[in-house]
């Protein structure tokens, strides 16, 4: 992987790609299709591929998927926005990894997650704002239908604009901020890097715990523990035989 600063044109291309993919993912998440293309497990490698490093995207996407596996949009409840976080994190980290020449390593991933996690909360607020705007859209439609215009229901698709535009803007901004992130990662000394690697292990552990909770079955922790012991035993036996 060649290290070095990205040209402004290259960075703008990355920002445009991030905006397009992030914006489309934002509407796929709830408003359209729901084929799970916007889940972190899919979005991060997909955006990573668009930016030139799909493997780094996969490295980010798997633990993010597990961390947010239990976030479910039930009725009026709004979970944290895992799609915005995955899009923004990938848009910032993959170019930063390219600039640093190491790709996205555990230290950069942990640093990025610590810095960008609040975007998941911002995403939830944006979703609430979009819902309120849709409420105003509904009033318009109701008035027109009562006035004898059944075609007013076509305004339904206008509800997709705000999620698209807000996510696209945030993902583009994150891509533009990637040189800054690369500089911060480059300034980390060896001891800090070791610490950040430890932090990434802890993120994985939290992700597994979140996945066990996401199953929402009282037997899940016991089953997971039993299988983990069996897998560790099998791994130890296999290792000693080799």
């Amino acid at each position, binding site marked *: 992987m060649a290290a070095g600063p990205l040209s402004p044109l290259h960075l703008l291309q990355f920002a445009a790609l991030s905006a397009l993919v992030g914006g489309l993912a934002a509407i796929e998440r709830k408003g359209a299709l729901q084929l799970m293309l916007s889940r972190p497990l899919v979005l991060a490698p997909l955006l990573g591929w668009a930016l030139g490093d799909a493997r780094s995207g996969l490295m980010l996407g798997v633990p993010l998927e597990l961390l947010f596996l239990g976030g479910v949009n039930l009725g009026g409840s709004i979970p944290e926005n895992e799609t915005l976080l995955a899009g923004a994190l990938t848009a910032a980290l993959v170019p930063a990894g390219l600039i640093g020449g190491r790709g996205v390593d555990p230290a950069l991933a942990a640093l990025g997650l610590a810095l960008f996690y609040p975007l998941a909360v911002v995403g939830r607020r944006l979703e609430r704002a979009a819902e309120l705007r849709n409420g105003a859209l509904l009033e318009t439609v109701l008035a027109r239908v009562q006035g004898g215009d059944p075609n007013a229901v076509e305004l339904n698709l206008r509800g997709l604009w705000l999620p698209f535009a807000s996510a696209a803007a945030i993902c583009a901004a994150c891509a533009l901020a990637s040189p800054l992130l690369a500089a911060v990662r480059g300034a980390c000394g060896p001891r800090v890097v070791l610490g950040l690697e430890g932090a990434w292990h*802890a993120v994985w552990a939290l992700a597994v715990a979140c996945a066990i909770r996401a199953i929402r079955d009282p037997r*899940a922790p016991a089953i997971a523990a039993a299988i983990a012991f069996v*897998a560790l035993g099998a791994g130890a036996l296999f290792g000693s035989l080799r």
Partner: protein
Amino acid sequence: MMAAAGRPTEGSAAARRDRRDPIASGRLPATTLARVFLRSFFLQAAWNPRGMQNLGFAHAMAPALAAIYPDPRARARATARHLEFFNCHPYLAAGILGAAVRLEEQVAHGEIAEERVSALKQVLAPPFAALGDGFFWLALRPAAALLAAATAPALGLWSLFVFLGIYNTVHLGARVWLFAEGYRRGEGIVAAVAHAHVPWATALLKLSGAALAGILAARSLLVALAPPQAGAPLRLGHAALVAATIVGMTAILPRLRFAAALYLSLALGLAIGSGFF
């Protein structure tokens, strides 16, 4: 409102005319039904706190209503029926959508009262929502994602296709089946869904998900334990951190906020990894 048409004999001029007229024949063209089905993928485009999926439902019904009610005033009245509050699981709503199209045809024929359409939606939406949330959000998606996560080290990027393939085969198959059964059976969609063994499949998927989470827990421990370079000592501190985090967070996560859990884990990992402890 249209009056019911008599049944013409097969091959007669009336039968040929009826094939072109959805109201007279009692069946909408396949293209119209396909348009309704495709629009069901945008059910939540304008989700709002007051009517929830009502605008999306009315938008999906629009092609069918345009075929059933050529008169704009009658169509506007029918459209208003579908702007009533509606909230269901977005996938299982396809069954209600198909049934609503069938019932609208019957309303247009004068076979049933228009209140039956609203009643069907109000009665079916809550149980279908509970069934869909339990199966798709809380069982199928976690199980498919955990399988993809567990196979990612071996399959790499192909693990995405494992996730999308498993999930969408079931999801899209269910949507098509529900819509078709809803249109074929009308209110009888309830019996079709009742025989679909959903609770049994949900329980099986949850158990599979728990087992896969166990495999991921073991893998996380082994990865943390492995030395960064050949010949270096095992990282016992990292492995202990991972084991303690998995056990501790599984126990306290519902009570501890996610943000606190994340930053606590990051801080502990940073401290142990940098040799602060």
